[in-house]
């Protein structure tokens, strides 16, 4: 049996267990509602979940634009110029170790409990790994490649577009993968803490009234969101970094990126 079919079997087994364990009464429905009751709860309140999903998606998309755009831009500057690197990198690295969620209450004071505070928090949350990966990606470009381009008469802008950018793509994408996952975490967590809309808000509201099927319906939606995002990034990676697939380095990167995503989700 191949690893892939085995993986599929494990997932199917877990889904079956999810349905069976609560039904047989081994686990109380309060702790784990069966899959069918979760789906029914989601289906009967589809409008409510749809609205919440729209709010969350909007926040995720805007935060991702800020986190990725800002992270790539600043990462490119820090990665290519030594002066800002010496100035900024130590700060960013230590900031990375701080649990940024402590900033969220401050953001709600500044920006209110609407989407703005979520976007601000999630943007900063996802910005750091994207920036660090971009800076690392640009710093680790083989100087021989730049020298070769120069010997062929490449101007500064040609070197940027034709050498630095394509060479940095794999590292930047693995940073986006981590950064994007953190954006989703940031949005959902902040919705759960203080808010008035979104999937995180629904989860936390239904939890306070002990309505487990509705809580799990929200959890399922977030899971779906994260998996879709991951699949999208993988697809882009395959398209953009075709030269890395098939090499050992490419696989190692892949493993590392998915490994690095684990603590985030």
């Amino acid at each position, binding site marked *: 049996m191949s690893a892939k079919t085995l993986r599929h079997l494990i997932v199917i087994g877990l889904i079956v267990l999810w349905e069976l364990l609560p039904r047989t009464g081994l686990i109380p429905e309060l702790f784990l509602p069966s899959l069918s009751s979760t789906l029914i709860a989601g289906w009967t309140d589809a409008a409510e979940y749809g609205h919440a999903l729209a709010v969350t998606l909007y926040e995720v998309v805007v935060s991702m634009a800020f986190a990725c755009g800002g992270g790539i831009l600043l990462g490119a500057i820090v990665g290519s110029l030594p002066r800002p690197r010496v100035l900024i990198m130590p700060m960013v690295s230590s900031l990375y170790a701080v649990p940024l969620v402590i900033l969220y209450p401050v953001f709600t004071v500044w920006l209110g409990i609407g989407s703005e505070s979520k976007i601000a928090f999630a943007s900063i949350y996802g910005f750091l790994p994207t920036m660090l990966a971009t800076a690392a990606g640009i710093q680790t470009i*083989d100087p*021989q*490649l730049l*020298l*070769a*381009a*120069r*010997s*062929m*008469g*490449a101007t500064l802008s*040609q070197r940027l577009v*034709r*050498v630095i950018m*394509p*060479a940095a*793509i794999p590292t930047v994408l693995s940073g986006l993968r981590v950064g994007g996952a953190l954006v989703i975490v940031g949005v959902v967590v902040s919705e759960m803490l203080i808010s008035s809309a979104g999937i995180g808000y629904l989860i936390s509201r239904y939890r306070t009234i002990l309505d487990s099927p509705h809580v799990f319906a929200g959890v399922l939606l977030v899971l779906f969101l994260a998996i879709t995002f991951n699949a999208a990034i993988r697809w882009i990676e395959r398209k953009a*970094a*075709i*030269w*890395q697939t*098939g*090499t050992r380095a490419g696989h190692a990167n892949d493993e590392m990126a998915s490994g690095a995503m684990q603590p985030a989700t």
Partner: protein
Amino acid sequence: MQPLANVTPLKPAARAGAIEVKNVGQVFRGRSQDVVALDDVSLEIKPGRFVVLVGPSGCGKSTLLMMMAGLRQQTTGTITISGAPILQPDPDRVGVVFQEASLFPWLTAEDNVEFPLALRGVPKAERRAKAQDALKLVGLEGFGKRHPHELSGGMKQRVSIARGLVQDPPVLLMDEPFAALDEQTRMTMGDELLRIWAATGKTVVFVTHSLTEAVYLADEVIVMSARPGRIVDHLQVQLPRPRTYEMLSGDAFGALRDRIWRHIRKSA
């Protein structure tokens, strides 16, 4: 090995360029004292010659090559190629071949060869045609669609040579191009390079650590010493061409190699 007489030059009016290095010096400013990397180096290379630079590590042979390529500025002196001073990289006059790692891994072999043409906005069809010619010249016809990671070390270096030749520059500079290859591939690539050189008639300046490679390939060997880097000997290799494997064990070959080795041992 292929007899050279059977090789028809691809370009009938092969362009070859002269190189003139006059009183070139390079000084690195250190904290306590200045380090003289090159000290008053002068040499003249006639068009179409195959010249090899050898010397111990740190003798400045790669530095000198990078100056000829316009990738580095000398502190003093001038370098002229095809009659005009070289102040910055000029792919019209000089093609450069680096060590193995310098192919762009995200481009196919033919896109790599086309790269210098694409930089100057040469139309796609013309680019493709020139790249095909260059790949054919280095014996890689039919491998154009492969990415570097799908090619062996020797094939990658052939692509690099094709890229260096695609603009038909009169001078080809090679910085230890076979250093990363295994011994057998290295020998084969040496023969291949001589075949390509005979077919195109370029002036070649080749930097290497290997004394055998130096004598085997060269018309002239320039021996440099370290700290300060200067030229200590300039040998003419009179061995007939085509060079063959049997020459390696001959007396003439051994005598030349010994002479170079004595210089290097003295300065190292």
